[in-house]
């Protein structure tokens, strides 16, 4: 009986027998209380503990003078000079978004925003990287419309512009869609970075924001499991978001932070009150006394265990000096929110949980957080097969009629891209960009990770997840400044999954290092597996770049489609690796990738983009369907293009790492090193016609068809 009971408990709390034995050994006890079960369950979940990925994460490139945040904070912060800094991070909300797409995606946005303003930065930009199953897969239209409207609902209401994103389709996501949300926050000269680490004994512990309900209990352990047939039954573990509350929380938190009223702040994310209190305490090396009976509740019947594990949204914990409590309460009251003292900081590094006068639990956070298990799973790396001949699809029309090439306007039209009135480049461009309030310089945001390249070669795929967006930024004059990653993979107990994880991280890290762009924050989402099927390795990456040019009233940014009639178009290339591209099932590749050379390529692009002399009007890093795909995307109903040079089909349609199409207002007089190709392609012309070899494409018509086929193929 006893052992059956234990097996059930282990299953319920998502712990292994070994982990249970290890926990008993740490606590020097014979068995665990209900509260201890709850604590270990959530804090040792993959989601909170990173137990399978930690050894790899430590190797990621993250040393740089630019980094001004401490380790173990909610997001990374980098210095931009002139007194300005930015905090940013990307985070997954995959499992909840598959169970309940609208709320899952909405709370994904809410969660990533809290990671940013918890640190004292005002959120000024959002972006998202979404992956869905192939056209015709089960629930596709429900998932796509649910996720997009969830992001739209939350981001628009909270008032942070969504400036860029990627929407990908691949059969490996049929039963495991991905929702990765990115947020960026800003610090002006006067703004301080707020830490989550408590440092002063005797300070009060204050709960602020929304009341606690039963939503999201066991969310963290749910997100650390593979899905089975009845994942539907997990719906009650999904949190519900309220962007209006979040907006008020942003304003009130930033107000108390700016007034210097708080010491440390931590948001309640995965595993709610448990992880926030334990992380604050462990990070600062001090203890906490937390009276759970003082926590504001939505439902008075909640048990202490549920209060600890609830993932109700829009809540924060902060610490402050006793004399500041009244002032803090007043600020929160002004914004219609509660601020309640629920305990205090203790000198002894122990967490004391109280419930109606009783001590529920007394535990050293180091035993749970610091001594959390760590695994070195077996891994098996894939061999890359080099092809002599790389075949590409030349079916341009087919591509732009498919879900991959279909216009994503339906998605981004639903996002407020301009709230904040500082959006320089919106979702219709290859990168997003916002103007920095004080210096009037601008930051660019670009996301990367291409499934097909990843499945061909995870090392190159991982590198490309950084390099492709980094070059998109460079071609608009933005120097890649720092990086965040969101590592979505399958079941880590499978050696081939861990092999892909290891290879792609190595590629990513080396590529970032060659650019001196540190990886400052990130998140890992494992167990993206349903009924034995694992997702394609998806380390999605957010790269943020800095453009030092001042955005004055008449400033014209470099755009992503042709701007003028009669301008000269060139192709600048560093074409060492060629692959068949995103539209063929059978992916082939040939060649090598030299990071140092790509970095040099990036520097040339930045110089061209910022130079007044050559006056670059638009640029586009060549992607799907090769050069022809890019020329089509750059053309419009008013400005077309005649390809003036003889180029064979293979060269026109294959993809490579890397090349960039550039449109110049005046004839460029550039000194390009011999290592790189620089060829004239032709002139832009009036009217929406794209001409190459013997073919003519009616740009407006194909763009319209491409827009319509989105609705047909996705079913929205």
């Amino acid at each position, binding site marked *: 009986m006893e052992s059956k009971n234990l097996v059930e408990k282990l299953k319920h709390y998502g712990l292994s027998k070994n982990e249970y034995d290890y926990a008993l050994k740490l606590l020097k006890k014979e068995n665990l209380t209900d509260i201890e079960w709850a604590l270990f369950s959530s804090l040792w979940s993959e989601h909170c503990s990173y137990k399978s990925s930690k050894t790899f994460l430590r190797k990621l490139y993250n040393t740089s003078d630019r980094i001004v945040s401490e380790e173990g904070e909610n997001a990374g912060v980098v210095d931009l000079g002139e007194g300005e800094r930015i905090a940013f991070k990307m985070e997954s909300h995959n499992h909840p978004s598959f169970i309940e797409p609208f709320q899952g995606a909405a709370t994904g946005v809410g969660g990533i925003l809290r990671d940013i303003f918890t640190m004292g930065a005002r959120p000024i930009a959002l972006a998202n990287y979404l992956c869905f199953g192939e056209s015709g897969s089960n629930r596709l239209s429900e998932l796509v419309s649910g996720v997009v409207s969830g992001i739209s609902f939350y981001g628009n209401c909270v008032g942070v512009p969504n400036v860029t994103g990627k929407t990908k389709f691949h059969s490996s996501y049929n039963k495991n869609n991905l929702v990765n949300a990115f947020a960026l926050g800003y610090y002006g000269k006067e703004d301080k970075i707020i830490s989550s680490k408590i440092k002063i004994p005797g300070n009060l512990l204050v709960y602020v924001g929304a009341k606690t309900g039963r939503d999201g209990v066991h969310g963290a352990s749910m997100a650390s499991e593979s899905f089975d047939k009845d994942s539907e039954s997990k719906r009650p573990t999904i949190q519900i978001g309220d962007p209006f509350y979040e907006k008020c929380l942003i304003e009130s938190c930033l107000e108390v932070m700016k007034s210097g009223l708080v010491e440390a702040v931590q948001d309640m994310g995965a595993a709610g009150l448990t992880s926030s209190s334990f992380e604050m305490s462990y990070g600062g090396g001090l203890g906490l006394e937390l009276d759970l009976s003082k926590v504001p509740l939505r439902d008075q019947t909640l048990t202490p265990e549920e209060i600890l594990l609830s993932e109700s949204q829009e809540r924060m914990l902060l610490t402050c000096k006793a004399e500041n409590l009244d002032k803090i309460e007043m600020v929160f009251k002004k914004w219609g929110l509660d601020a309640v003292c629920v305990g205090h900081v203790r000198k002894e590094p122990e967490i004391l949980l109280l419930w109606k006068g009783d001590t529920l639990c007394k535990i050293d956070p180091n035993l749970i957080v610091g001594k959390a298990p760590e695994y070195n799973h077996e891994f098996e790396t894939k061999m890359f097969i080099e092809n002599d001949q790389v075949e590409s699809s030349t079916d341009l029309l087919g591509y732009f009629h498919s879900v991959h090439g279909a216009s994503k306007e339906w998605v981004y039209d*639903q996002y407020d891209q301009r709230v904040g009135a500082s959006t320089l480049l919106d979702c219709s461009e290859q990168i997003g960009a916002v103007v920095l309030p004080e210096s009037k310089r601008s930051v660019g945001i670009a996301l990367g990770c291409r499934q097909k390249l990843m499945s061909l070669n995870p090392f190159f795929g991982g590198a490309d997840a950084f390099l492709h967006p980094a070059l998109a930024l460079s071609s608009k004059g933005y120097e890649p400044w720092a990086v965040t990653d969101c590592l979505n993979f399958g079941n880590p107990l499978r050696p081939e999954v861990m092999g892909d994880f290891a290879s792609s991280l190595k590629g990513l890290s080396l590529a970032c290092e060659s650019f001196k762009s540190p990886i400052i924050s990130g998140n890992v989402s494992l167990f993206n597996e349903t009924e034995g099927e694992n997702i394609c390795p998806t380390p999605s990456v957010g790269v943020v770049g800095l453009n030092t040019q001042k955005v004055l009233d008449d400033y014209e940014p470099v755009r992503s489609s042709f701007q003028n009639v009669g301008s000269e178009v060139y192709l600048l290339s560093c074409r060492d690796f060629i692959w068949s591209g995103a539209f063929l099932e059978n992916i082939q590749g040939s060649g090598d990738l030299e990071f140092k050379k790509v970095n040099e390529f990036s520097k040339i692009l930045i110089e061209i983009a910022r130079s007044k002399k050559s006056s670059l009007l638009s640029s586009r890093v060549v992607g799907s369907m090769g050069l022809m795909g890019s020329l089509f995307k750059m053309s419009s109903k008013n400005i077309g293009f005649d390809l003036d040079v003889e180029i064979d089909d293979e060269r026109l349609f294959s993809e490579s790492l890397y090349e960039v199409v550039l449109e110049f207002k005046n004839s460029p007089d550039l000194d390009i090193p011999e290592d790189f190709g620089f060829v004239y392609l032709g002139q832009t012309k009036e009217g929406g016609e794209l001409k190459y070899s013997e073919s003519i494409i009616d740009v407006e018509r194909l763009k319209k068809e491409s827009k319509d086929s989105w609705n047909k193929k996705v079913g929205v």
Partner: protein
Amino acid sequence: MSRKIGVVRFLGTNCDADVYRAVDSTNGLEAHWLWYEDHFNINDYDGLVLPGGFSYGDYLRSGALAAKTTVMDDVEAFAKQGGPVLGICNGFQVLTERGLLPGALVKNKELSFIDRWVTLKSESKNSLWSLNEKECRIPIAHGDGCFYVTNSELETLRSKDQVWLTYKDNPNGSVGDIAGVLNEDKNVAALMPHPERAMSTWMGSQHGKEFFEKLLVNKDI
């Protein structure tokens, strides 16, 4: 001396800072915050702007809760006295909910939120809000932007020159393509598009500037 313009903030308003900047950057105008719970002296102000952006999370109906706040008592008194009031997006919704402007704003025809650049046509001829430009390009960003009035009300609006702006290519199903209206006295004006997001070339257009410059026009016109 600069004209003093009150920018009204409700809980959840999210274009407040953008509008404040747009007002303050207009030569001759000076922006001041007005908080939803507080009264203000209507004689201290030369104009008011109600910014856009999800007051009270659009709960109940967009603008419905904000319309019942303390500050709106004074906004109403200011408007009744003939003072110029500009409502943008959610500010438009608040003004219709308060009964200071005709009609109602309901869910977009396609039911989803739309962020897009649109072309507006200037319709009203003889008010302080009449634009110099015949057409202007300004972005919209709304979920409940479909303007609704009955056919007979539409006729009245037209006959009294209360149709301020129309869409060239109606994005949301608004009756009569209406993007902005005026009250009968022509001192209260509101539009769904966001002029504060069209203040310089890099934003995509400078056509938004004129909307704030209208607050400089003498209110007796």
